[in-house]
């Protein structure tokens, strides 16, 4: 019998029932909740007269909608306040743990889970948010779900899901200087397009991922959804175990050792077969940036916008529409293009390591006058750590505005919007039209590239500074 992939091992261990020619009923170990995609699910429970089945497997925090200034004061926007209050009310009524605004554990749900040791290898983890794939960095099967599915998990701790196909993406070799996790994933998506992973669950393998920190691995897995994949995961190793050790909800003492022994079994067997395999060479990867309106529209930062003739015929209308929105022309060189905003934050790059990288880069420098630079820590814990490490002082000295934790300009549900027509180099994950505000023009890049842009005021190769 052929061996199993890591994804298969975890999935199969969670199947409660397999429906013939239909989905599997999958048991969910950990459910994460936020204010935007849960109210209708709780309303559904109430309408059926049900309670949350396993409150010990459910954690909530508000993130998408929260303001990033004056968090100690009542939320000014009525609708936002109502939604956040609704989350509090629902959690109280159902006995679900909530890290509300101003709680020391509040933050973006995908930053909070790993940081508290809630996210562990071998688990099934879901959340009503597509970037749940982030948690796959720990060797868990983690994916985003819709609100009807949130209701299913609340009510039964299970989901009906068709099993995805398996893809392995191997990147071997050494990354060049100035190249990081974000560049790897932007590079892969640019190679295989924004739909290249649809229908698949991706395992990332090879030395380029092995050598990444947990933060870097989370950045990679986070953006699995941007290639259309259901999720992405990386087999756990010493780096994973060391990250988890000692965290609030991680097993302790002998329990930890026992857990690690089990986690060591989580790898893809040598003879396992994938439905698709891709290989890339780390040496080919350079600092990346996107020029268009989907995350697959990326090039190396020193590159040019493609020409119309480079684009498949069926995609040319969309390509032209996208460039028009971005105010760019085919073939244009991106280097030297003036930028207005720099946003460092989100569940992709709002972790302590990202803030450290930016602080290290801008230390003793000043942001350019034409740049508005926002740094939004991914969580209260990140914010606190950044203060304690003196990063906040360095960043403020350089002219960055430090805001309070939340999703912020990643999706612009709150006041943090990039104005119409303005260019933003952003460390987030989506450059869709209007994602960062109506008419906003987003260019995705790594924290280092974003820092370099902040300092020079224009698109620049961070390796030149």
């Amino acid at each position, binding site marked *: 019998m052929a061996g199993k992939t890591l994804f298969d091992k975890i999935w199969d261990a969670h199947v*409660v*029932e397999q429906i013939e*020619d*239909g*989905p599997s*009923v999958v*048991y969910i170990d950990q459910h994460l909740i936020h204010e*935007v*995609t849960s*109210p*209708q699910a709780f*309303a559904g429970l109430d*309408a*059926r007269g049900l309670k949350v089945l396993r409150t010990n497997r459910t954690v909530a925090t508000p993130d*998408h909608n929260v303001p990033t200034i004056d968090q100690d004061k009542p939320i000014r*926007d009525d*609708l936002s306040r*109502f939604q956040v209050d*609704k989350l509090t009310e629902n959690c109280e009524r159902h006995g679900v743990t909530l890290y509300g605004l101003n709680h020391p554990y509040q933050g973006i749900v995908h930053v909070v889970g790993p940081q508290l040791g809630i996210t562990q290898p071998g688990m099934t983890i879901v959340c*009503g*948010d*597509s970037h*749940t794939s982030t948690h796959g960095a720990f060797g868990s099967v983690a994916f*985003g*779900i*819709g609100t*009807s*599915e949130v*209701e*299913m998990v609340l*009510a*039964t*701790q*299970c989901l*009906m899901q*068709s099993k995805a196909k398996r893809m392995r993406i191997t990147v071997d070799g050494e990354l060049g200087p100035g190249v990081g996790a974000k560049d790897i994933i932007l590079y892969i998506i640019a190679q295989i397009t*924004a*739909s290249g992973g*649809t*229908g698949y669950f991706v395992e990332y393998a090879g030395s380029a991922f092995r050598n990444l920190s947990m933060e870097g691995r989370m950045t990679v897995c986070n953006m699995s*959804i941007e290639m*259309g994949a*259901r999720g992405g995961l990386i087999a756990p190793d010493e780096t994973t175990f060391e990250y988890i050790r000692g965290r609030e909800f991680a097993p302790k003492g002998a329990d930890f050792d026992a857990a690690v022994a089990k986690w060591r079994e989580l790898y893809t067997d040598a003879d396992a077969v994938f439905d698709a395999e891709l290989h890339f060479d780390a040496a080919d990867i350079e600092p990346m940036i996107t020029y268009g309106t*989907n995350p697959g529209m990326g090039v190396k930062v020193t590159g040019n916008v493609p020409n119309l003739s480079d684009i498949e015929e*069926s*995609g040319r*209308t*969309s390509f032209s*529409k996208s460039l028009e929105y971005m105010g760019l022309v085919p073939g244009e060189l991106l280097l030297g293009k003036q930028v207005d905003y720099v946003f460092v934050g989100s569940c992709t790059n709002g972790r302590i390591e990202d803030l450290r990288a930016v602080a290290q880069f801008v230390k003793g420098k000043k942001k350019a006058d034409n740049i508005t630079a926002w740094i939004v820590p991914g969580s209260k814990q990140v914010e606190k750590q950044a203060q304690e490490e003196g990063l906040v002082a360095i960043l403020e000295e350089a002219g960055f505005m430090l805001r309070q934790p939340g999703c912020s300009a990643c*999706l*612009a*549900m709150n006041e943090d919007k990039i104005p*119409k027509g303005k260019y933003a180099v952003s460390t987030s994950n*989506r450059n*869709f*039209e*209007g*994602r960062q505000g*109506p*008419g906003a023009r987003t260019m995705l890049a790594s924290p280092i590239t974003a820092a370099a842009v902040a300092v020079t005021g224009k698109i620049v190769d961070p390796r030149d500074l």
Partner: protein
Amino acid sequence: MAREKFQKVHSSAVPVHIENVDTDQIIPARFLKATTRDGFGENLFRDWRYDGNNQPIADFALNNPIYSGDILVSGKNFGCGSSREHAAWAITDFGFKVVVSSFFADIFKNNALNNGLLPVQVSDAFLAQIFEAIEADSKATFTVDLQAQTFTIDATGASASFEINTYKKECMLNGYDDIDYLLSLKDKIEEFEKKRA
């Protein structure tokens, strides 16, 4: 809780001839502050339908009176991006029963099915035929037969079959939803938990 049963659809269609339509276009994040499922249709494709001054953009298909019907036809990779079910709610609230594309993002597909909205995936070539039929006659009609799993261009009789798993098909045809089914598994779920503990 029972839902409306999915009947055969016989209707004209509205063409949104764009690839990679993401959920931020279907329903921009700033409209996600509601805590009920209703009213999202008003803001479906908001920023393509209205300009910065809230004036309708005349040449966008949803504003063009020559187009109408229960079927939305769009380019490849429809529904990519976020998991927001609000996208499916906005489409059904606007009045569509079927979305046709040559490729759907996974989460969107699940969300659609969970809301009685049928995603019909056809080949690129057949999708092009559908767009041509609408271009030739904006009132061209189509027949969607879920029981037979076929999508037919009435004018030419050209027909394509589409995939849907048996379980989901039964749910759609009978108006069942997944939660009812999962709730019926209560004992099995508890047994599973005990076995693993």
